[in-house]
């Protein structure tokens, strides 16, 4: 259908252009370029038709199912809505050819009339489409005169498209918030929010009994997330990231920097599933051996330390680039002053640059924390599933993101408390990362203003 519209629009464009070229022979000076007239005509032809083509599939579906219900065969359908829907969708699959064999013999009987009806409605749709395009074309064609301001019309449409495009971002944000709140609301109507936010027992089951501990206490998850993402990973990433930034900006010769910067970008560009695989298969066993050597009983290769270390490495480029920016933003005069007083480079860095750049670095660390707690694949593959409230980095902990994946990739009954719990966890994750980001950006912005 859309191919047809494109062909018709192109034809209209060509006709419009040849028509507009004829204007130059008349005495009146045209108010727009031939391509403007042509585009206007093409828009007149394709616009209404495209709109129609977008809604027609939904419309024809409803019409087809209504028509089937009126057929004599449909009288045999069971009255229960679920059974009826199952048979109908099966019959529809048979008619499309997407389903090879049906469970219900009735589906075969229905398939033939459905296919027939679909063909009819497809024909009707195509006819309507062509008619709409023709009407649009004739209206547009009658308007094509030298005095007609085609450019303004075309540009108004362009501006509308630009505005719609920028509204997509707003719609996405709205969609995220709405879907999370809606599904989480359904979850909280089954499980009280206090149990979810303050309970310490996590062992979700599909069935929920009111007034009883249903294993939806998410505190161990929150702790695991903070332990891995905000503590272990940051212990690795903050010193390393800041030192990398200092070395690259203050010490490294520019030739070395030209090579190291892309290497660091590559470190940031490695997919997290690769990090996760590395953590689970290479680092995990090493840590396990180490824990055994330390005298731990039954150590696991899925430990908080494994995930945290690898996540820390993944975060290094982020912290180093943020620290890089904030060190570069410190006025040169401060550095020069310190060096002129006789301080060595390292003393200048430690006593002048770092304190001056600290707000920017802190902002960067907050952004890194928000990245780390939202990170999924590393913890799914390396951190384990046991919901422990523990301070021991060698034991297994689980995180919010791991549990979201776990809850949503098992059984797929969408209305169970288990799957809805994933949305509640997602809502918490979204709110926390949002607050961290807003806070971090505010700090960075304020600090930039201080030196501008």
């Amino acid at each position, binding site marked *: 259908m859309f191919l047809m519209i494109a062909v018709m629009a192109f034809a209209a464009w060509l006709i419009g252009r040849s028509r507009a070229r004829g204007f130059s022979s008349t005495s009146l000076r045209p108010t727009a370029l031939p391509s403007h007239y042509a585009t206007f005509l093409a828009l007149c032809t394709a616009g209404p038709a495209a709109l129609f083509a977008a809604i027609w599939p939904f419309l024809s579906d409803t019409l087809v199912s209504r028509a089937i219900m009126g057929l004599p065969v449909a009288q045999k359908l069971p009255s229960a809505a679920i059974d009826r829907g199952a048979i109908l969708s099966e019959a529809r699959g048979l008619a499309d050819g997407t389903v090879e064999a049906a469970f219900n013999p009735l589906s075969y009987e229905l398939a033939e009339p459905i296919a027939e009806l679909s063909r009819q409605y497809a024909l009707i749709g195509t006819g309507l489409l062509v008619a709409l395009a023709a009407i649009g074309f004739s209206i547009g064609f009658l308007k094509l005169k030298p005095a007609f301001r085609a450019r303004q019309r075309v*540009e108004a449409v362009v*501006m509308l*498209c*630009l*505005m719609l*495009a*920028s509204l997509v*971002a*707003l719609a*996405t*944000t709205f969609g*995220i918030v709405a*879907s*999370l709140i809606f*599904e989480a609301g359904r979850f909280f109507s089954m499980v009280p929010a206090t149990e979810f936010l303050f309970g310490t027992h996590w062992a979700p089951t599909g069935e929920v009994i009111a007034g009883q501990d249903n294993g939806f206490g998410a505190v161990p998850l929150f702790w695991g997330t903070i332990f891995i993402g905000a503590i272990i990973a940051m212990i690795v990433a903050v010193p*390393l990231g800041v*030192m*990398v930034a200092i*070395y690259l900006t*203050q010490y*490294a010769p520019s030739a070395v920097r030209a090579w190291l910067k*892309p*290497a660091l*970008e590559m*470190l940031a*560009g*490695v*997919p*997290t*599933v*690769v990090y*996760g*695989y*590395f953590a*689970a*298969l290479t680092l995990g066993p090493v840590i396990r051996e180490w824990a055994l050597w330390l005298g731990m009983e039954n150590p696991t290769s899925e430990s908080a330390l494994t995930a945290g270390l690898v996540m820390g*490495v993944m975060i290094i480029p982020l912290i180093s680039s943020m620290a890089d920016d904030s060190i570069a933003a410190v006025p040169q005069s401060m550095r020069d002053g310190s060096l002129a007083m006789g301080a*060595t*480079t*390292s*003393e200048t*860095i430690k006593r002048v640059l770092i304190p001056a750049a600290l707000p920017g670095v802190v902002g960067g660390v907050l*952004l890194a924390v*928000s*990245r780390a*707690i*939202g990170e*999924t*694949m590393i913890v799914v*593959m390396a951190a384990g599933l046991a919901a422990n409230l523990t301070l021991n980095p060698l034991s297994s902990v689980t995180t919010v993101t791991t549990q979201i*994946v776990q809850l*949503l*990739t098992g059984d797929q009954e969408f209305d169970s408390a288990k799957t809805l719990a*994933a949305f509640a966890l*997602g809502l918490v*994750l979204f709110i926390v*990362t*949002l607050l961290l980001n*807003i806070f971090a*950006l505010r700090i960075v912005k304020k600090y930039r203003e201080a030196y501008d």
Partner: protein
Amino acid sequence: MTIHAAPPVRLTPTDWRSSKMTSRIARRYAAERRFRLLGLGAVALATGFLAFLLIHMMSNGISGLNWTFLSQSDATDPAQVGIWGAFKGSLLTMVVTLVLSFPVGVLAALYLEEYAPRNRWTDLIEVSINNLAAVPSIIFGLLGLAIFLNTFHLPRSAPLVGGLTLALMTMPVIVIAGRNAIKAVPPSIRDAALGVGASPVQVVFHHVLPLALPGILTGTIIGMARALGETAPLLMIGMRAFIATPPGGVTDPATVLPVQIFLWSDEVSQGFVEKTSAAIIVLLAFLLAMNGLAIYLRNKFEKRW
């Protein structure tokens, strides 16, 4: 009350050759060297990790790269598995992502940078774009599950839904990169075009956009590379099925390279270790090529006005 004169300060020139001073200077220089070494050590650790990761994957997986591996799809026997099905799924998903996110992202960037009036709506749009760029990817997966699958009933496990979800994720990256590229076009170009009678729309589409395009493309490639390596949102929308035949279209069930790596990494059979590493090599090769292209574009077309 009498004022006592302060005792005169005895200024003696510092004797830099005294043992106290030389040792102090030596100490400070040693601290300087230590600090420098520490920085070098941090850089070496970070790049060393990267090198170790790459070499490790290479040595594990290079023997698994052969024609069967490149042309077959998933199977239960590790000797028979291949990457082609997942690769095709990735390709289809990326096409959907690019087709949706590139035009929308560029148009939104143009609007925000060139036309948008300064008002509350514009601020709201800007804030939401900046926040979307920082939202964890798994949240986009939840969005895809709730909206595309459960509300619109689009097919599960399909590249269409994966592409839609990743497009929403990639779009803010393209908008932000696009705005920076558009900002870098000097105002004199716009003034000149307006001066010879171009309309605001013509100024932007005939002059600003072509000049900003290399920068926009660089940002787009980086965003696409990120989308190509993304796993978590695709797990949410069910692209983790066992797919033994390559998908024929955007609505067929499919899986993608990173998810295939994740699925194989869960297999117990020893043969899958080699195959997983080989798949990682293929994925990293593509990402490297894309990033290399982006860096090349940036260096070749970067203009200093």
